[in-house]
């Protein structure tokens, strides 16, 4: 329990250890800790930022979606209108075409009727001549009576 040189020895050791601690131990550890703090703070700030960005993006998406819906509705409406127009036009065209076909058919029918009537008239003429020849029993000279027959035919 006597005070002796140990006192000085301890003081010297203490100074030595403090020096070593100050030089080699404290700075790297405390700097490392500060660095980690900065790292964590940075990470948190980044997370905050990205969450903010996500919110912004979500808002943008909502706007875009709204626009797209409006546009789509617009397009559908236009398409419907156009479709109606096309249908109307087609109807008109069909009607015109139908009329035209009807007219040409009518004309053809008329033609046929005229042709048929002509043929019938000729056949009736021949039949009449044949009949007359048979009734008269005589030779009816075709050439002699052609004029008469033609006249008859014309009267049919």
């Amino acid at each position, binding site marked *: *329990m*006597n*005070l*002796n*040189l*140990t*006192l*000085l*020895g*301890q*003081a010297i*050791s*203490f*100074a*030595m*250890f*403090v020096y*070593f*601690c*100050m030089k*080699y*131990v*404290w700075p*790297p*550890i*405390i700097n*490392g*800790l500060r*660095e*980690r703090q900065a*790292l964590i703070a940075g990470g948190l700030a980044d997370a905050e930022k990205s969450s903010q960005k996500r919110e912004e993006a979500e808002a943008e998406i909502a706007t875009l979606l709204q626009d797209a819906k409006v546009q789509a509705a617009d397009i559908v409406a236009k398409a419907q209108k156009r479709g109606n127009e096309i249908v109307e036009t087609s109807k008109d065209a069909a009607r015109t075409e139908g009329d035209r076909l009807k007219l040409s058919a009518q004309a053809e029918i008329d033609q046929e009727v005229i042709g048929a009537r002509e043929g019938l008239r000729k056949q009736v003429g021949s039949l009449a001549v044949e009949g007359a020849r048979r009734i008269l029993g005589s030779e009816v000279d075709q050439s002699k009576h052609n004029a008469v027959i033609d006249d008859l035919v014309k009267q049919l």
Partner: protein
Amino acid sequence: MASSQAPTSTEYIQHHLQNLVFGYHPENGLGIAHSGAEAAQMGFWSINLDSMFFSLVLGAFFIWLFKKAADNFNTGVPGHLQGCVEVIVEFVDTNVRDTFHANNPVIAPMALTIFVWIFLMNLMDLVPVDFVPRLGEAIGIPYMKIVPSTDVNVTMGLSLSVFVLMIYYSIKVKGGMGFVKELTLMPFGSSNPVVQAIFIPVNLLLEGVSLISKPISLALRLFGNMYAGELIFILIALLPFWAQWALSVPWAIFHILVITLQAFIFMMLTIVYMAMAHEHH
């Protein structure tokens, strides 16, 4: 206890409280003291080899361990050692920041050194009292106190170093006159020069006592706590071997608190004294 017959209780206790002193004895010359009386006759110019050895080993262990953690410092996920070291460093750093507001790069590392070193020295108290001294006797070392902080030289060495730094920083920060003024013009002051002159010796006495008591109380608080703790362990060791655990275990568990607390108190007071030295009035 190198003697052949079993020692008495008094001898046992005295033996355990005697340091291994190396010095110059007026009669026996340079060598190791073989009794407390011889050690006392050696006077100031001797050295406690056991205190020096264990404190140096523990201090070196502290530097080695913390340097290892510092060298492999990972700013990402820390390992076990690093986590441990980080907790201690952060703890010390927080205490220094809370108390010490000036800018001085020495204070925080010094506080860390004090805390860990004293803790390690105190921790030696938990090694059963006879283990290492018996080993020492086996190789011919007569005395061995393995708890450096139960040696008043060790605690005084630390507190006087702190005291020297205190005065150094006081004078550096406040100037020589500032330091003298602090000692003489406080706590009693007066605008009347005559009254002030009467106050000066009173102030000097008060402040002088408070200044000197700082290192003394710092050293003796740690020394007293550890010495008493060690003494109780020695007393418990006098019990029959089968009964010792009933007292030594509770005391050791309680002592875990004491050694940490004493290390913390020493560190905290050092920081406070340094903060006072850096304060401007």
